[in-house]
């Protein structure tokens, strides 16, 4: 453990990131610029989330990493090992035991409690980016609360598909003020963003932005009066644990069109199976 400073980053960098986090918490949904560092992993692998995690971790924390809900995929395993080696913190896969959870593209099914921190990896923090490429202009739009353009995107969805087809990174309005990209979580998870007991921190490494939602923040998904927001999921029960209320991954299991649906949250699914729940595809 002597070859690295605690949690890899040096203390000054962590202070700088903590200042950005505090500012983000003070202005929920506002994108705070920060001096993102080069991390020993490629952009797109969670450099922003890792820096935020490094800044908030303490030696007493228990750390969990999920990638698309799973604890055992490459991204999750490598980041978990990274902090095991550089910070020596305890790690877990159980959502309720963790104090800091770094996530890519999911919010755990199990409700989080006070004292927990959920750290999101964010590829593109600017919700208006694909409609307005100029950063100077999007900043102005945020500061002047000109968010009509966000609805143009939803309008386009409906005119093309008959319903709001945006199914992930679904834009939300925070405390009636800032429009925020919740990172590419499925819109199924959007209702969990609001009024959450845990602190939610968002880190975008390449784009050098941090934003945050303090506990119990009001978060509203944007929609039209005649096309209200709907949290959608695959209309199946989980094949392994039989859960009907969890977000599902669709797995292709042979080349004859066979497929099964399983919980994307592996911890939730395993806990249910351990408690005796069984789906139709369980061995």
């Amino acid at each position, binding site marked *: 453990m002597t070859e690295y400073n605690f949690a890899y980053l040096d203390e000054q960098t962590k202070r700088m990131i903590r200042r950005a986090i505090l500012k983000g918490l003070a202005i929920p949904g506002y994108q705070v610029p920060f001096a993102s560092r080069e991390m020993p992993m490629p952009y797109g692998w969670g450099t922003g989330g890792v820096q935020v995690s490094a800044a908030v971790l303490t030696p007493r924390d228990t750390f969990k990493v999920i990638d698309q809900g799973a604890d055992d995929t490459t991204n999750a395993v490598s980041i978990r090992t990274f902090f095991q080696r550089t910070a020596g913190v305890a790690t877990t896969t159980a959502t309720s035991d963790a104090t800091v959870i770094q996530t890519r593209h999911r919010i755990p099914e199990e409700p989080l409690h006070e004292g927990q921190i959920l750290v999101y990896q964010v590829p593109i923090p600017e919700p208006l980016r694909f409609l307005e490429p100029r950063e100077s202009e999007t900043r102005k739009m945020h500061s*002047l609360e000109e968010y*009509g353009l966000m*609805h*143009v995107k939803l*309008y386009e969805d409906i005119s093309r598909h008959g319903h709001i087809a945006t199914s992930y990174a679904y834009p939300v309005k925070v405390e009636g003020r800032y429009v925020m990209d919740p990172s590419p979580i499925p819109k199924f998870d959007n209702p969990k963003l609001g009024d959450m007991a845990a602190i939610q921190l968002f880190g975008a490494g390449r784009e050098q932005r941090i934003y945050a939602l303090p506990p119990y923040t009001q978060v509203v998904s944007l929609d*039209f009066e*005649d096309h209200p927001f709907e949290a959608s999921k695959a209309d199946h029960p989980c094949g392994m644990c039989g859960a009907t209320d969890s977000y599902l991954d669709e797995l292709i299991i042979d080349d004859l069109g066979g497929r099964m649906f399983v919980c994307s949250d592996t911890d939730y699914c395993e806990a249910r199976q351990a408690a005796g729940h069984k789906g139709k595809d369980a061995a």
Partner: protein
Amino acid sequence: MTPLLSVQGITKRYGAHIGCADVSFDLYPGEVMGIVGESGSGKSTLLNCMAGHLVPDAGQVVFDTRTDGSRDTITMSEPERRMLGRTDWAFVHQHARDGLRMGVSAGGNVGERLMAVGERHYGDIRDKATDWLGRVEIDASRVDDRPTTFSGGMQQRLQIARNLVTGPRLVFMDEPTGGLDVSVQARLLDLLRGLVRDMGLSAIIVTHDLAVVRLLADRLMVMKSGRVVEAGLTDQVLDDPQHAYSQLLVSSVLQV
């Protein structure tokens, strides 16, 4: 009668070079003002200063707002000015591409201003967009097509629909017919004339095409080297130009 727009002593310099100098005029409701002059005479600079795209070095642009009466739009706060730009003002660019979102469908383009002022009912927005496409002679079946699939004249008409959907009172136009072939120009002018008369719009049209102002404008200003050299009723200026430059301009038009 209060003027809708009162411009006083607008001056814009680019370093030592003069963009436009000491331009003043009043525009009354329902009136169309034409600004003509050769390239580089400062007419676009003047238009951009009035529309809030450029900050003039001196002068006032007083607009008769719906809520607070006469306000100087140059000293008002930026949110207020941008709000005006979405509601009471409209700006038609020379190149439709500058004024449209090319990646968004025609309906979305027209609906953007509605959504920007708080409209949140998809059905209503779409109905209004379809209605406006009809008014600018674009077939309602094209409502979900992107402007990239439209011809130049259609793009320009779409840009006009997008600007007029919120019922503005003042329209700034920068060479609205530039780059269109003559038959398309004629149709566009006919359409614009109809819309301006029906909606009682006031407009300021910058152009170097004298035929455009002859058809649309009530009054005319001739600019040269950043200054207004002659102003008056359109037919008066065009049929009996007094200033040497106006005479040159009028006599330069090809007669076919």
